């Protein structure tokens, strides 16, 4: 969790008044991501004062001369007063507390942050704000990462050549192989076989910016035939001759109505308690849900393999580039990138590759599996992604920092949520609806301490390697925790989970108190 952007001044000299009974406390005031700390000078009592920022209910600031006063009223009804040296420092600290106390995670994961990481690894890419007013692409965020060699004017032209303006942007930079993962929508080739010089130049620039001699693969999530047929309606797929160095691969993934139907049938089958048991397995097979999971996982493996093993750059798109494309790019990152497997990293991945990337949650998750309404835009694309992540977690039980609980929470909140994170279909809509100011972020809800036990995997050990899942049919299971959640007795598995947690916290406790003893021993 990165709060550093919100902290304007980290430190100041201050005096804390805690009410008539307690003596005032002087020392260095520190603002951290979660806490306000007052560390007294070395000669004073060694007491460290600490306040959880989220417990601040209201904040009031006053300035007089070159001093300032901040009054904090806390949710537990305490009133605290901080006298701070320096006007600037007072205002900055007040603003930092203001920003942090809401636990406002809205600013946690913008593309800007991911760009910082990419910029550390390579300088072939730049952050473009060409989409500042959403005029190039209404479903992209304001800032996107594009090749440094391509200017904003060229981007505008490329956007016109891609459906919905979704020109190729960077999704993930794989530093070890110096290759990239890109996503876009289909090119608007049309029946006249149009071309776009800027679009071709952009993909050329991608290869040029990668390691020398790098090739590229375009993973089209439609069959070759469907891609070709799309030309009749103005779409299509990249012509070989126009994009030298890029090779096209077709991996048809199910989307839209058939995917929704598969989901509905599966839920029906799982809930049908009357159904003759002899045919459960063929009914399960008939739903084809596990087949979709297998296809999604193997396509993600293909993209990841292309980068890691072959040193190739990968562009993923289907038609609109807002559904199966995102399944593939986000799973490929989970396979390759250890940092996306942490709690914070996974939240960032979902924020960046699904929410900011313009997956139309509002349309896709309007109805779940029970609705009698005829599905129009509903499709469980995000659920398919979560199921794939669950399969990955089952095959690599130690390598994900989050557990099944996290995936279930994301599923629940994507369909109905008191938080604003999954609202609307795109960044533009979220700006129009002022989602950020009028709702709370799911991530701050999930990152509360009391939620952690349900969401985290207690056995997590960071795994620096790529996770290559087995996609053999016998390796993929029905996600019972989701599909049979309300029909199976949960106690036994919960008991095991509780036991693991107990041992982990026991161990942390003893680990934590152990240096205490040695520290006091040193002083003796």
């Amino acid at each position, binding site marked *: 969790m990165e709060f550093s952007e919100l902290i304007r001044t980290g430190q100041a000299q201050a005096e804390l008044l805690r009410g008539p009974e307690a003596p005032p406390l002087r020392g260095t005031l520190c603002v951290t991501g979660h806490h306000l700390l007052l560390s007294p000078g070395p000669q004073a009592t060694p007491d460290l004062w600490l306040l959880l920022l989220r417990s601040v209910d209201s904040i009031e600031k006053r300035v007089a001369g070159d001093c300032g006063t901040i009054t904090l009223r806390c949710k537990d009804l305490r009133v605290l007063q901080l006298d701070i040296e320096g006007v600037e420092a007072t205002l900055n600290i007040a603003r930092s507390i203001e920003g942090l106390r809401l636990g406002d995670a809205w600013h946690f994961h913008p593309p800007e942050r991911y760009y910082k990481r990419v910029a550390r690894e390579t300088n072939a890419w730049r952050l473009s704000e060409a989409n500042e007013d959403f005029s190039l692409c209404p479903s992209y965020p304001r800032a996107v990462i594009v090749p440094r060699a391509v200017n904003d004017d060229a981007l505008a032209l490329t956007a016109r050549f891609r459906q919905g303006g979704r020109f190729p942007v960077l999704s993930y930079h794989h530093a070890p192989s110096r290759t990239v993962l890109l996503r876009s929508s289909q090119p608007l080739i049309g029946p006249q076989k149009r071309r776009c010089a800027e679009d071709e130049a952009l993909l050329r620039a991608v290869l040029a910016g990668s390691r020398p001699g790098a090739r590229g693969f375009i993973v089209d999530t439609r069959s070759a035939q469907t891609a070709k047929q799309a030309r009749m309606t103005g779409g299509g797929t990249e012509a070989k001759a126009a994009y030298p160095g890029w090779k096209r691969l077709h991996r048809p993934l199910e989307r839209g109505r058939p995917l929704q139907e598969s989901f509905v049938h599966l839920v029906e089958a799982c809930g049908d308690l009357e159904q003759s048991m002899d045919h459960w397995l063929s009914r399960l097979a008939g739903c084809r849900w596990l087949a979709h999971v297998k296809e999604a996982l193997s396509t993600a493996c293909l993209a990841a393999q292309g980068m890691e093993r072959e040193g190739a750059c990968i562009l993923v798109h289907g038609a609109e580039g807002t559904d199966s494309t995102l399944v593939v790019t986000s799973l490929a990152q989970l396979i390759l990138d250890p940092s996306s497997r942490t709690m914070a990293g996974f939240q960032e991945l979902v924020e960046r590759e699904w929410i900011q990337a313009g997956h139309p949650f509002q349309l896709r998750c309007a109805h779940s599996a029970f609705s009698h309404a005829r599905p129009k835009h509903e499709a469980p694309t995000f659920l398919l992604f979560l199921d794939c992540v669950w399969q990955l977690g089952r*095959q690599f039980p130690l390598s994900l920092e989050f557990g099944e609980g996290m995936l279930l929470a994301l599923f629940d909140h994507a369909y109905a949520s008191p938080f604003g994170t999954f609202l609307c279909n795109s960044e533009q809509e979220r700006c129009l609806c002022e989602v950020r100011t009028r709702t709370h972020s799911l991530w701050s809800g999930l990152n509360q301490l009391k939620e952690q036990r349900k969401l985290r995997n207690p056995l997590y050990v960071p795994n620096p390697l790529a996770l290559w899942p087995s996609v053999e049919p016998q390796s993929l299971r029905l996600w019972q925790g989701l599909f049979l959640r309300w029909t199976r007795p949960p106690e036994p598995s919960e008991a095991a989970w509780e036991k693991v947690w107990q*041992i982990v916290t026991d161990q942390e406790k003893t680990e934590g108190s152990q240096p205490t003893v040695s520290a006091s021993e040193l*002083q003796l």
Partner: protein
Amino acid sequence: MSLLRGLLGMDLIRTWVRLFLSFREKLALLDSALLLDVPLGVISRIEKMGGATSRGENSYGLDITCKDMRNLRFALKQEGHSRRGMFEILTKYAFPLAHSLPIFAFLNEEKFNVDGWTVYNPVEEYRRQGLPNHHWRITFINKCYELCDTYPALLVVPYRASDDDLRRVATFRSRNRIPVLSWIHPENKTVIVRCSQPLVGMSGKRNKDDEKYLDVIRETNRQINKLTIYDARPSVNAVANKATGGGYESDDAYHNTELFFLDIHNIHVMRESLKKVKDIVYPNVEESHWLSSLESTHWLEHIKLVLTGAIQVADRVSSGKSSVVVHCSDGWDRTAQLTSLAMLMLDSFYRSIEGFEILVQKEWISFGHKFASRIGHGDKNHADADRSPIFLQFIDCVWQMSKQFPTAFEFNERFLITILDHLYSCRFGTFLYNCESMRERQKVTERTVSLWSLINSNKDKFKNPFYTKEINRVLYPVASMRHLELWVNYYIRWNPRIKQQQPNPVEQRYMELLALRDEYIKRLEELQLANSAKLCDPSASPSGPSQMMPHVQTHF
């Protein structure tokens, strides 16, 4: 011995290897990259493939079918008749019975620091159950196996039934396997009784003694007016058995009883079902229609029926509704599955490592499950109709339960797989012969080593770290097809594409954490000890607030 080209089923591993017959019990391949280690006991069939005129790579050699879901194929060089010698030696030692040779367990001189043969002592086990009591007595009537040659020497029968009654009842039960007690509920005193089918026959014979005997069993619980009989077979089969002299308890003859059929199929159906499972997993996994091919084997369906039957038995007894009599035809296959699984659900003692060993030893080995016939130890007749994976099916059911109740069992998956491996290996005497009287005659306990010696001398390896001991908790697994899984780690373990996760990473990580915690606690105690020693010194002062510091810092 012979230079062979080993083809391990899949064409994935091809390498020149040396084939060894080491110490007459194992087939081992030595190679820098690969070690194949196959006990000769698992060999079911050895065939020569190709002839002297065969052309093409790997067309000439030996094809070995194993009992544990795999085949081995060795391609040999055609020159020099190397195959003949190999074939003869393998056949001789893989099937010692046909060559009047002893089974390997009798030659095995392994030593362990624990004697597994002492694990099961029937008197102690019955005493643990609170027997004998006012209604049940231990009888030695079968001491010399005269009453029933496939039953153990020691039996528990109703107090009110005399030895003469028992002898008369034996005449009316198939193979003299009379109803005897398997388990008694510690509180409500209802019981699980096992036996074989009554010899009713086509003419509908009756036997007053048998009818009276069952009523005596019912009366051991005064307040209950019905005795429940579970016939494990499908009703059609039970009726068909009348033609060969068997049958079931009819309403007219047995008042105060209710009879239910549990629809579990016979040994032949199970054998064919497992054969189909092998077809879809070995050498290649049937990928395109995995779920429907799995369904067409019906294996999970059979598992479901066995579990469902056992749940019904357990529920009757645990609710105190009535005592239960379980039988099938001979009462040594399906009956053993049902009684042992029900006991596992009812009695937490059997969920410990030693408890489970006792359960297997009691309900399976001592009560005459025909291991020798069902497995075919050392016997070359691979097509024998008596062979059937009944015990494997029981272990599969236990595995399904352990999946659903991850904290309820002291043992782990490796324990179950080890038992299955040695079911075939012939390294131990535990599963040899069909019944106790045979084992006694062959002095198995004196001349062979028990499998439990191996396991109990290295228990840590077989322990489930999540185990939480819970007394008196009855486990009711969900026996719905939705909740049953194919035991991939057993049935598909030879497929190199299946990730070998041995030992289970979750278990291992958990063990690490446990060890780490113990270590910290130990160090903490040591430091506290050292601290308190210093605190006695008046010059040392406790520094309370400073202890807060590091603790606080751990939050960030």
